[in-house]
């Protein structure tokens, strides 16, 4: 390996951007290496961004109405999540975090099922094997070694699966991020590590998370190419992640992509973001909104008709209605479920404990 081979692992100085905040096509900043996605792909992304934004709005509303216990909104990060899902093929896996409801939906998981956990019910509202979407993970970065294992297993069987592993900026500080990236590199596992750098880990700003020029600069330390992309430019996200997925599939090993984006809302509804950041900072990101940016671009090129717009809105309406219906249904808690999934067969101890709860329940019924 010569020096040049090493340097190509470093990301560009600035995040790759294909469409500017005002909707115009960008040249330079490394973006020239990537082609703009096809009109069809951009139009599809547009519709899905509209739906994604609506999911965030709808979920926030359900929190206010007390139907959801908590919601970590991805408002402002929808381009990352739509992009991450759309570049995958059938059979590829996605490993989402708690903030990646949109990405899971875009991979075909019913949003009602994704939100089940946040309603206070069982974690896995969905069957991970139906869509190859892993259960969303809360302990930060812990899903990343799983992603490597899934990829390595597929690789050993000669399958061409690619695994998209999501993490936040905060998650990159955990030991598991390091170990996963290193394992992937050593085993040349087809994993795309995708960091949504939204500038905050709850209240902690990026500067407290890393002193590096960018998080993508970590790749070279593992022999893995690192790329930076404007996370509010869905065209760039699609292009850069698409390229990364293709490389991973071709056997070039893991890829690291950092998207620069911003968490427009509080960490969750339980958080008070005014304690640690200024409204003016938030406001400065409004202009860079991924949805309006794409809309401007498509309108500028005459690609976005009122019809497309209405079609997207209709899709969003339908999704929102579906989510409301699904989440307004009341969950009947069933105590038997407590003991049903701990092991393939409940242990004798769990059978005893289950019997105790059943007995309590029958006494309650009798006592009524």
């Amino acid at each position, binding site marked *: 390996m010569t020096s040049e081979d090493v340097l190509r692992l470093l990301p560009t100085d600035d995040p790759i951007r294909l469409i500017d905040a005002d909707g115009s096509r960008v040249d330079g900043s490394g973006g020239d290496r990537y082609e703009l996605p096809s009109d069809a792909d951009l139009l599809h992304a547009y519709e899905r961004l509209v739906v994604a934004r609506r999911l965030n709005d709808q979920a926030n509303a359900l929190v206010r109405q007390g139907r959801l216990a*908590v919601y970590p909104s991805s408002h402002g990060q929808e381009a990352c999540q739509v992009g991450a899902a759309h570049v995958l093929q059938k059979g590829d896996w996605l490993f989402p975090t708690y903030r990646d409801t949109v990405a899971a939906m875009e991979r075909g998981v019913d949003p009602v099922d994704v939100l089940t*956990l*946040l309603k206070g*019910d069982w974690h896995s509202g969905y069957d991970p094997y139906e869509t190859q979407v892993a259960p969303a993970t809360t302990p930060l970065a812990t899903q990343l070694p799983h992603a490597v294992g899934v990829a390595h297993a597929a690789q050993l069987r000669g399958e061409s699966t690619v695994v998209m592993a999501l993490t936040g900026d905060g998650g990159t500080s955990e030991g598991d991020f390091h170990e996963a990236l290193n394992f992937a590199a050593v085993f040349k596992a087809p994993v795309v590590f995708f960091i949504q750098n939204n500038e905050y880990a709850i209240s902690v700003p990026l500067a407290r998370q890393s002193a590096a020029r960018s998080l993508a600069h970590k790749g070279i330390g593992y022999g893995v190419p690192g790329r930076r992309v404007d996370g509010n430019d869905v065209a760039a996200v699609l292009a850069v992640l698409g390229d990364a997925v293709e490389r991973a599939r071709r056997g070039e090993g893991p890829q690291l992509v950092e998207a620069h984006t911003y968490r427009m809302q509080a960490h969750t509804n339980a958080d008070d973001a005014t304690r*640690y950041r200024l409204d003016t900072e938030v406001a400065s990101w409004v202009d860079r909104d991924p949805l309006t940016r794409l809309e401007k671009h498509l309108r500028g090129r005459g690609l976005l008709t009122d019809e497309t717009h209405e079609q997207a809105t209709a899709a969003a309406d339908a999704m929102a209605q579906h989510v409301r219906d699904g989440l307004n249904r009341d969950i009947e808690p069933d105590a038997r479920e407590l003991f049903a999934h701990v092991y393939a067969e409940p242990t004798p101890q769990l059978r005893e404990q289950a019997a105790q*709860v059943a007995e309590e329940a029958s006494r309650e019924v009798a006592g009524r």
Partner: protein
Amino acid sequence: MSAGQIDHEKLTMAQALNRALHDAMVADDSVLMFGEDVGALGGVFRVTDGLTAQFGDTRCFDTPLAESGIVGMAVGMAMNGMRPVVEMQFDAFGYPAFEQIVSHVAKMRNRTRGRVHLPMVIRVPFGGGIGGVEHHCDSSEAYYAHTPGLHVVTPATPSDAYTLLRAAIASDDPVVFMEPKKLYWSKEEVALGTDGPGIGTAVVRREGTDATLIAYGPTVPVALEAADVAAQEGRSLQVVDLRSIVPFDDETVCAAVRSTGRAVVVAESAGFASVASEIVARVTQRCFHSLAAPIGRVTGFDIPFPPPKLEHFQLPGVDRVLDAVDDLQWEDQ
């Protein structure tokens, strides 16, 4: 505060903890607080609220998001003249630091033959009852209590929260300080002084003659409520609040159990190989011939902590405690 004069204030447990940190930081420059979101945000439970503003961000500060690093850095700071207090944001997020805690925090004094000691506190919000999603409601005290070299304490009242945290910070040994999340908002008049029962001391929270309930942290109010109900039914239950799991106050607990001849241990964590098991084993060993019935256990089931909609099945409640008391073979007398 002048000597002998002690302020009293009505505080929640979270506020009492905050005051304990504040007062310890005023009293001793080497006391530091760090972890995730403990700075500007003041902690997700606001236990560190205002500390950065008052003491600056070298005394109370946010770190990168990495619990092993947090505890490991605290070890180094404690080796080098500081008295760090660190926060694990939720109980299950202490697990990444497990190696540091077990292999270093617990062992440093012993492996250096007493030459290096670690005056540090690991604050761990624990337990359920707040409708938290998975990984936010674990009770991990058994892991720490089983590890020689750690002190493990847990308050059940705002007053104890203040006293025990001050004692933990003052201790020359590492203390795992388990904070019952569901009691963060419980409120009472708190004496802001550092005397009162210290680490290693259990207290009898309610006198009673028929049976003894042994509880700690989040189950103390449950035990007290059960005793209230039992009293209405004509049964007199004594309630012991452990406060300190390690060291364990055999004397107070065994005296209490001997005085009634019957006991039930009430704890939230899964029961198997737990602190509750230890209490049953050691008290039985010491009080065997005073016991009219085997000591009962009301604990969490041996399952991962369930989702919010199901957590009421998992948490020891008054009914279950009273059932266990009923099972103490009264007819045998």
